[in-house]
């Protein structure tokens, strides 16, 4: 019985390695390089099929970009160098993190400004409440107090 299950188990193992072989396989010298590759392919956007990263996309261009990333990683290029390489060819668009410049700075500024504006509004409306009380009413109240004495 045990013999059979070992046999079946090893058959299953064979199957699983075969399934793996049909996909792209990249060999790396170090674990750091492998980690960098997987990180970058997740952060780079496929220029053809938008809203997919190049790790996720089946488009030919995505496969070409993955191969290029692999090649550059293996050449020992740094993360920044590879991102720059892609940006030089496909523009800022290719990297999911937008750069901060005169047009995009509003993405960060607007929400902050909005919250600040709201805070100012709330604070001001709170402060103004005591101001609403009438001077005449106050004086009348004061008089009543005086009379009671």
């Amino acid at each position, binding site marked *: 019985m045990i013999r059979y299950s070992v046999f079946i188990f090893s058959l299953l193992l064979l199957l699983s390695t075969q399934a793996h072989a049909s996909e792209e396989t990249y060999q790396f010298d170090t674990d750091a390089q492998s980690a960098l590759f997987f990180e970058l392919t997740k952060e780079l956007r496929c*220029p*053809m099929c*938008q809203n997919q990263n190049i790790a996720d996309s089946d*488009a*030919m*261009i995505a496969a*070409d*970009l993955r*191969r*290029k990333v692999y090649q550059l990683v293996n050449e020992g290029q740094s993360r920044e160098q590879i991102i720059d390489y892609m*940006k*030089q*060819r*496909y*523009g800022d*668009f290719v990297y999911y993190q937008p750069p901060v410049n005169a047009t995009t700075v509003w993405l960060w500024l607007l929400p902050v400004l909005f919250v600040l504006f709201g805070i100012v509004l709330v604070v001001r409306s709170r402060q103004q409440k005591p101001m609403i009380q009438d001077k005449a009413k106050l004086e009348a109240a004061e008089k009543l107090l005086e009379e009671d004495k």
Partner: protein
Amino acid sequence: MRKLTFFLLPLVLFIGLAIFLFQGLFSNPREHESPLLNKPVPSFVLPDLMDTDITYTTEVFVGKVTLLNVWGVWCVTCAVEIPYLEQLKSEGKHIVGLYYDQDIDPDFGIKTVARVQQEVAQKLGQLGNPYAYNIFDVKRDLSLDLGVTGAPETFLIDKQGKVRLHHIGDINPRVWQNKFESVYAEVLAE
């Protein structure tokens, strides 16, 4: 006065947002400016598609205005575009093909060059040939350096070999009139 601003402020914000979003309805998400604009074509050494003994470098673009058209026989839109390119050619425009094959895997290379040549000859026999010659981007390296996302795409290259326009998608009379015509005239006059 205070009441009026309280009433108008949300309205103004809403109108601003509505205009912003409305514009988005008509913008093309695939349209983004090429970082290569006004820069020379990246250097390459690639063979001619039909005669691999001939090699081309960036020097082929110097001295004339070129329309570099990225295409392949597997590309359906390219087949639609080719008749119009022929018309442009008959108007005296210099059109060069940048050919790449989908089935050639740079790591394995399934298809032979002879097979590709045969397919191309057959396709251009059917549709007509607008190309002065075709550069064969064997491993799609030049395409990657040019920021090509697919086919068809067209680059307008000036007499100094600089990229002046990068169009993603096919060229048709409307695209030519709206996008190419004025830049082409400008580049030609230089």
